[in-house]
């Protein structure tokens, strides 16, 4: 299947590609490139997603578009949002944008309906990288508030070991940790059942 990935950086892209290939199984995924697609973080992802969806459908003949966002301090996705979307939840907001855009696509002969697989890392993708490692981040822990013992800044420091990580280091860490997690996706499912779980479910349904 041909997939298009919208990411914030080449580091995020490297990790999401590895995780996607692990979810779908080896040799099943073909990435549409070049170009690589970038967004300048939230809320640009929401703004840019329609253009990427339209490119994926009309120009790239893709099976699906994948986008993963950081939740930062916004409301994390919850089971209660399914069927009753919360507009302050980034995953819900992105889903609404994706559904509206896909709904407007004109059918193209010989092409199936385009899918959009979305994920949300709470509070940032570094939490996924540190899954199963100190400070043992999880969605459940994050919503407990100040007692969780970490924030976005300390997570980044824990992931990269420095305060001002460059893209090369970030990409190396992203690849290393994504490969580790690819061998134990259940760990991500357990600790990030909403934000990662949504992505995995949608990818498996393709």
């Amino acid at each position, binding site marked *: 299947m041909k997939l298009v990935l919208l990411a914030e950086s080449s580091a995020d892209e490297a990790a999401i590609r590895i995780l996607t290939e692990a979810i779908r199984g080896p040799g099943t995924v073909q990435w549409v490139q070049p170009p690589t697609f970038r967004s*300048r*973080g*939230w809320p640009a992802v929401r703004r840019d997603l329609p253009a990427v969806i339209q490119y994926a459908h009309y120009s790239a003949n893709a099976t699906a578009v994948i986008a993963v966002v950081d939740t930062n301090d916004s409301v994390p996705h919850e089971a209660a949002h399914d069927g009753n979307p919360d507009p302050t939840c980034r995953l819900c907001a992105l889903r609404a944008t994706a559904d509206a855009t896909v709904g407007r696509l004109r059918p193209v002969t010989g092409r199936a309906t385009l899918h959009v697989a979305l994920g949300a890392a709470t509070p940032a993708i570094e939490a996924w990288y540190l899954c199963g490692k100190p400070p043992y981040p999880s969605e459940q822990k994050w919503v407990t508030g100040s007692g969780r013992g970490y924030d*976005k800044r300390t997570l980044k420091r824990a992931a990269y070991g*420095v305060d*001002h990580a*460059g893209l090369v280091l970030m990409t190396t860490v992203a690849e290393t940790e994504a490969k580790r997690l690819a061998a134990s996706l259940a760990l991500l499912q357990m600790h990030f059942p909403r934000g990662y779980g949504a992505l995995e479910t949608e990818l498996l349904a393709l």
Partner: protein
Amino acid sequence: MIKAIRFQNYKVLRDTTLPLGNFTLLIGPNGSGKSTAISALQKARTLEPRVPAQELASAGSPPGRDVTIEVEWGEPHHASLTARWTSVGPVAHSIAARGSFSNELQQTLFDELGRARVYSLDAGQLAQAVVTQPSMTLGERGEGLAGVLDRLRDQHPERFDALNTELARWLPEFDRVLFDTVGSGQKAIFLGTRGRKHRVPAWDLSQGTLLALGILTIAYLPDPPPIVGFEEPDRGLHPRLLRDVRDALYRLAYPKDYGESRPPVQVMATTHSPYMVDLFQDHLQDIVIAEKRGNEAKFEPLAQRRDIEQILHDAHLGDAWYTGVLGGVPAVE
């Protein structure tokens, strides 16, 4: 490290203080004193221009009022140096120190300021072939690049290799800086295309490619100046390349985070690019806003704004700055 520069009656900087960290990104409208501020360190050292205060004074300043630039150091010097221009011209520096003052301290402060460089790179200068000399340094407009890179290759081959690796990541069509002798014994730069099938002379490279090479070279110098200013390092470069430019500047300012063992360089940079500003979303303490009101500009550290977290809760930093809610945008009549 220099903690702050205080300005009194100096051009548009009538009465303001620029706080400095390891890295400081100055954002604000044209004419808001960004360049004036980062070039002030050298002026404080040299007392140039040697003119009466009234020629440097803020608009509308009362006659006879002095102009001062005070540079304040934190660790390890804990001292300040004041350059003063009076109605008859510049007068001798005054130096104050928390501990004991010595000629050695004075010399150290002078040396540090004397080695400060403010780079405003120019593609034409960067492309020039040069007659190499043993201790060539990069000029503030990029003069001597070929000689500096030639020295890097000969004296620090591991750094030269690292620079080439980074160059290939920034500009994937190239993978090596090459040299050749042209004209009357001058050394010229060529960039080897990937796979070494072709080489492009510096004078045929795009402006952006040359500017990127200039920034990369400064970042990989073994002995960069202790204080460095960059005038719009984003100029001429694709927005997606700015993340790499930011990393190059951070390599200078935070060398340990990039595996470097040399001392940190104190870096100041200016920009007008929201894309560049975006890259500091997680490092708000690195940003100072230059706010211009009429003929006067003031500096405000972004991280000190009480409302910054609320403003950026659901917004991107560059977009927020562009809208004007953070200040630092051109005034409207």
